[in-house]
């Protein structure tokens, strides 16, 4: 199996004044290329911390993290930015699109920071929007789009960089049932058709059910790791 992510004995310790918070306590985990993983756990379980580490927004206090064979734990901030740009696609609960900026330009953003020519940026951004079914909405501003459409723009923004892994943090948390199904269908398709590795953080067991592997986090440790046959149709 082609390992994409390998974590060994990951620790993350925050210091809040005199109090030490052990957000992650020796977490070890491997994710193979092409997996569709869900990450569940109560708030305070260390989910967010783990996502931040996986997403290269932060580095572990100790332990090993290899992404695509590369040691991330010791990378500098600029190197981390570069890894995020090329290997990670983020989808957030609250979409986090630039206001008063067209859908196309929102999707261009990662490529802009990669330094591609404007023409390439536009071409690839348009293709990514097409992939999430938003052709013809390139010039719409986020405020002119529905919640589901906005999240699709956000997915396009994550896809445009052609990432190694897509990290979705509660991607349906702000959406109604119908839109949630739309988003999960897109994610499932991306995983099955394009073999994109996806990790979804969720509270919702129904969402977790469509993934091929469920992880449970509690008190900074992995308490369950369940490989399953995913439901073919996302339900809610």
């Amino acid at each position, binding site marked *: 199996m082609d390992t994409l992510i390998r974590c060994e004995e990951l620790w993350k310790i925050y210091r809040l004044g005199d109090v030490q918070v052990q957000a992650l306590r020796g977490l070890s985990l491997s994710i193979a290329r092409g997996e569709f993983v869900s990450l569940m756990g109560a708030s305070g379980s260390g989910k967010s911390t783990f996502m*931040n580490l996986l*997403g290269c*927004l*932060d580095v572990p206090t100790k332990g090993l993290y290899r992404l695509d064979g590369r040691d991330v734990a010791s990378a500098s*901030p*600029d190197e981390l*930015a*570069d890894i*995020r*740009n*090329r290997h990670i696609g*983020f989808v*957030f609960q609250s979409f*986090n699109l*630039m*206001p*008063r*900026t067209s859908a196309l330009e929102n999707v*261009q*953003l*990662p490529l*802009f*920071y*990669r330094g591609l020519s*404007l023409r390439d940026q536009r071409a690839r951004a348009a293709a990514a929007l097409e992939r999430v079914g938003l052709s013809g909405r390139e010039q719409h501003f986020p405020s002119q789009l529905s919640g589901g459409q906005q999240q699709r723009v956000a997915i396009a*923004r994550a896809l445009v*960089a052609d990432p190694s892994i897509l990290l979705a943090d509660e991607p349906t948390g702000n959406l109604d049932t119908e839109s949630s199904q739309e988003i999960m269908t897109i994610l499932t398709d991306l995983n099955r058709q394009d073999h994109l590795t996806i990790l979804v953080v969720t509270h919702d067991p129904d969402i977790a059910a469509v993934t091929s592997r469920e992880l449970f986090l509690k008190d900074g440790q992995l308490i369950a790791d369940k490989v399953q046959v995913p439901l073919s149709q996302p339900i809610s």
Partner: protein
Amino acid sequence: MTMVTAFRVLGRNRLRAGLTMLGIIIGVGAVIAMVGIGQGAKEAVRAQVATMGTNLIIVWPGSTTVGGVRNAAGGAVTLTVADAQELKKKIPLLVDTGWAKRDVTQIINGNKNWNGPVNGISPSYLTIRDWSFTGGGPITQADLEAGARVAIIGETIVENLYDPGEEPVGSTIRIKNVPFRVVGVLSAKGQSAQGTDQDDVIFIPFTTAERKLVGTSFLGSVGAIFASTSRLDDLPEAVEAIREVLRLRHRLQADQADDFTIRTQVDIGKVQEGASETLTVMMFAIASISLLVGGIGIMNILLVSVTERTREIGVRMAVGAKRRHILMQFLIEAMTLGLVGGILGIIVGVVGARVMTFVVGWPTIISPSSIVVASVFSLAVGLFFGLYPANKASRLNPIDALRYE
């Protein structure tokens, strides 16, 4: 795209951007308008000084000391026609020398009369003063030698002694009841650098003045000697040469002070320019304060903007923006604020200067260099005051920034 982003961000809140730029607009506007007015004033002074003549040197008699009481400069009668002639002979730098003597007296033409200064002059005087004629001609050497009763009159005299349309040249006027034939009318010179009317003037041959009009202690004493050089740069050297020749002629000992005063056109211009320079320095001080306040305004609004857009910064970092990208984005916004403010300020300044010229009548000159300096300066103010907020933005932790509500 960064530039476009900057404009879009500023366009998102036009009122705020406008208010932020106000300080810069006022500062730059003030600089442009004031420099324009200052330059205009300087140019006006220069033009006035230029009306005195070309590369002019004036020598006045020194003050007399009577029983320890010093009289006004020019009170003594130490300069003579012979001095003037000797200066021309001895100093090759001098193109020509002339001399004059003046008295204010009553002038009559028909039923009109006027009180004006009558100057007895050598024919060379008008050449040195660069004075041309609108009618008639100059006083000749023959007039001087014969002590002819001929006069040349200035524009102001014509206005006051003649009816409109009346031809002055050829007419006869009476000066101190002595009849003089008017042979020439001078072109107008306007105000002198000191503010006196240079056209309120009558010229007659020096010898005539000496004999018929001006009471004099001895023949040949003059009120002032005028000289000119061919090049402006020769003035200091010529002044020294004149001093040397006159001291020798007046038999002054090394420990005695000059019994005459030498002034050049440049000296006279300097006094005026000094005044306008003080004004310029003051204006620059005011403008600098305004730019400083404007810069602080930019910094303040950018700090607010950084806080407001913390999440946006977080997203940008999440998709791969490096520190320098964020830094550049905010610096460019700051510089855009500065530059746009500067350009608006330049427009305000130019319009303000024009309005000044139109309403108050002050001459203004907008030099391209002041526009370039103002643009560069406002850009620099934006850059300088943008550094701190931009740096603050670029140092945000992406996780905290993303979580910021």
